[in-house]
């Protein structure tokens, strides 16, 4: 054997740690990611253990205890820490159960959008040609539609339920997935490792599965996190306008609409559900920002 082995290539001379340990290192040193992860994680736990955490039945009305203030205000009681609403339901319990509604709809709608957007995006990017032209046109048309208005009309006409809301929000929120996966796939398709796989005799499916998808997966996860927040906000808007989740289900947007009647008299009814929404969405966005920073090796943005 006349080949000279590269003598320098000792394990300690490798240029960088493995991708996985680099990722972990970057993730653990990213403050926003940790905070966002903590918020979202905690709220997922709250949703899962809502029956254990809620002090009262969120649906139990009590006319005698209507519009109680939070415990720390005059007239409040520690039995209803955050007070009660117009029909005397415990506000803290409703907020806790509201976490379930937001998260179910957020995850559901973001998943529906993911399936549509990623399928279209990868196909358009990989096959190009007329498929790409058609998909781009559909994208332009979808962007032109006033999403909120159409969602309101459709939910109202079809009849509001959690599944309808998930379906409609999901069907109207896939453009972000499409745009990103399409351009990522186009970029990857022109990479030599895809040409190498073709030259090895790999089938289209093998190329998509082993060469393309592993390289767009991190971007898809990042978008999913952002879409989670967007879907949660969309649901709350629909419910606030009365064309989303219907009473008596404790949706935060709906609770704000109900609390609006007593806006000046009992502002806490509007403040608390809004704060919960704000917290959950900011958590999801911080997580998304963080994941993007950590997974794109160029660093920020």
């Amino acid at each position: 054997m006349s080949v000279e082995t590269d003598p320098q290539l000792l394990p300690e001379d490798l240029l960088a740690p493995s991708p996985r340990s680099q990722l972990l290192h970057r993730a653990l040193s990213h403050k926003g990611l940790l905070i966002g992860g903590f918020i979202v994680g905690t709220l997922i736990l709250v949703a899962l253990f809502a029956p254990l955490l809620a002090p009262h039945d969120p649906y139990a009305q009590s006319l005698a205890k209507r519009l109680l203030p939070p415990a720390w205000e005059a007239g409040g009681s520690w039995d209803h820490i955050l007070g009660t609403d117009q029909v005397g339901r415990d506000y803290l319990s409703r907020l806790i159960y509201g976490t379930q509604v937001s998260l179910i709809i957020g995850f559901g709608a973001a998943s529906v959008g993911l399936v549509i957007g990623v399928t279209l995006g990868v196909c358009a990017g990989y096959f190009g040609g007329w498929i790409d032209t058609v998909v781009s046109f559909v994208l332009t048309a979808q962007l032109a539609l006033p999403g909120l208005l159409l969602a309101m009309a459709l939910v109202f006409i079809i009849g509001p339920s959690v599944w309808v809301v998930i379906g409609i929000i999901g069907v109207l929120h896939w453009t972000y997935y499409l745009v990103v996966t399409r351009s990522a796939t186009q970029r990857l398709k022109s990479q030599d490792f895809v040409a190498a796989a073709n030259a090895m005799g790999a089938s289209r499916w093998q190329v998509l599965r082993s060469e393309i998808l592993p390289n767009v997966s991190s971007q898809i996860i990042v978008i999913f996190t952002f879409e989670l927040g967007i879907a949660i906000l969309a649901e709350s808007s629909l419910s606030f306008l009365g064309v989303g989740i219907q009473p008596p289900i404790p949706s935060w947007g709906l609770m704000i609409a109900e609390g609006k009647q007593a806006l000046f008299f009992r502002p806490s009814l509007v403040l608390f559900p809004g704060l919960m929404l704000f917290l959950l969405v900011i958590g999801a966005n911080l997580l998304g920002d963080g994941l993007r920073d950590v997974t794109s090796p160029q660093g920020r943005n």
Partner: protein
Amino acid sequence: MLDNRTILSVRDLEVVLPTPAGPLRAVRSTSLDLKAGEAIGIVGESGSGKSMTALALMRLLPRNAQVKAEAITLCGDRLGAMSDRQFANEVAGQKVSMIFQEPMTSLNPVYSIGRQMTEAATRIGRLSQAAAHDRAIELLAKVGIPDPAGRLQQFPHQLSGGQRQRVMIAMALMNEPDLIIADEPTTALDVTVQAQIMDLLADLRREFGMAMILITHDLAVVASTVDKVAVMYGGEIVEQGSCDEVLHHPLHPYTRGLLASAPKISDVPRRLGAIPGIVPSLIGDVTYCVFASRCPQARAECRSQRPPLRELGARNYACVLTPEEVAALPPAQPEIEMPPLKAAPDAVLMQGRGIEKVFDIKRSIFARTRQLHALEDVSIDIRRGETFALVGESGSGKTTLAKILLGLNPATNGQVLLEGEPIAAMDRLKRARLMQPIFQDPYSSLNPRHTIARLIGRPLEIHGIGDAQSREAAVVEVMERVGLPSRVMHNYPNQMSGGQRQRVAIARALVMKPALLVCDEPTSALDVSVQAQILNLLSDLQRDLGLTYLLITHDIGVVHQVASRIAVMYLGQIVEMGDATDVLAAPRHPYTQLLLSSVPELNGISKPRRPGSAIVSNPLDLPSGCRFSERCAYVVDACRAQMPELRPAHAGPQLTRCIRDEVVTHDLS
């Protein structure tokens, strides 16, 4: 204009870049002196700190970089004491101008050429708008841009790469600087354009009496252009002296290795003297000789203390070896001749017959379709056991042809036969077992998500060969063959250097034991010392395994080193084809002559440049008749009347696509 005034003096320049792993000492104790009108070449491989040095002088480093120097003096002004504002207002663009590597991106796309040229002079009120306008026209004419007044209204995207670099040069001259810094000014350009740009720089330097710092990785470019050379390695100048002395009597082991690893053009190819290993990390204090880890002459003291700086008159080098000791060393390039393997004419492995490729170019759905004839009438035979080189500049169609020969893209017309079977009809798995590619960029050709073992074993997986255990054994075997230790098999591509990655790509291609490797610019993304490792490896593999290579390249040096037969391509056609020795020694087509005479040579003797314009015809608007007719110095009316055939040359065994080759040949001798 030459005088002996020193216009630039740099003493102990240091550049430190903060990185997450610690301070990276990218440039260390670098000193330079430059007299008025003198040119110095700073030569080094990637990571040597040569560009950092230039950027530090121009104050163009990122904000977080720390630059220190004992003294930087330009025309008597102490630059070190200047504020950034003062530097910008009095020095940048006036006393010193810079030309950058990437002409395609170095001009602002949204402003006209005229505005970008004149602003350098009008900004500081040096010239009036009208005077600056006139001067811009004058300079554009001087750098060889046709219709200079019209060009001022145009925008960068309307110009070719070579023209943009000419505009950059003209722009740098607006304020008649004392010093011009050219950072790899021709690296992004084709060799015929490079030759003309380098000539232009030399002429202008003489005319304006400017000093120049030329930064390049290419020793041969330096050889014919500058007075002095500084060789940088690992952030330091390891050797400095007159161009002739450094290139022909190198004293530092790194310079010796670097010269030994560059393919030579003029003699029988010898085994290249590769420098093993990679550039060490420069994080933290450097209290040792930076080259010690790769130096064949390294001693214990080299690893524990800085080498002495030895001064010999006007030259110096930093090494423990005395000049006498250096003189006694064995040659850095082994005296092993490695003539490229020849093959029997009847042992044809792959055949291309009348290949044509037409792309329909459509800017939008409403624009009319234009046809781009990327390939026309291409026929080649590749014989078992030889290295067949497709040579051409950008736009020649060589990469399109490679994709077609690999079966990755269909041809519009014509046929590719692999072992006599049409490739279009061949089962893709069978095709893959006969032929594998190696691509140019080892950063793009390896999926970053897979481990080395998975990458190399992937073809076996796709073909369903063996089980997990036997695949791993096959991977280990092929890794050993390409010089990769098996312990890296669970690592990822991002953990390896460019040369190591290219070894992985070669291992992946070899694991199927193919007969033919299609190598598309296999070394052009690599440093010259690493290129030598890979070229040696490819030669060894060919001899050991009886492989056939199809090599696609623009690099004449590489062709000379490994090719047995050559096809020269120009604008989608083969213009000359034959045995490498015949074509390289006595080219018969005017384009081949222009191409070969444009290649700079290490010995620095400038060859008579063959005539021909550097402006390539628009592939969407080809000239009638011979495609080279617009650039050709021998053109007659008959050339434009009809497309010439590829036919045997009148004097010489090769084929040529020129109707006047007897005139061309006569002219050469």
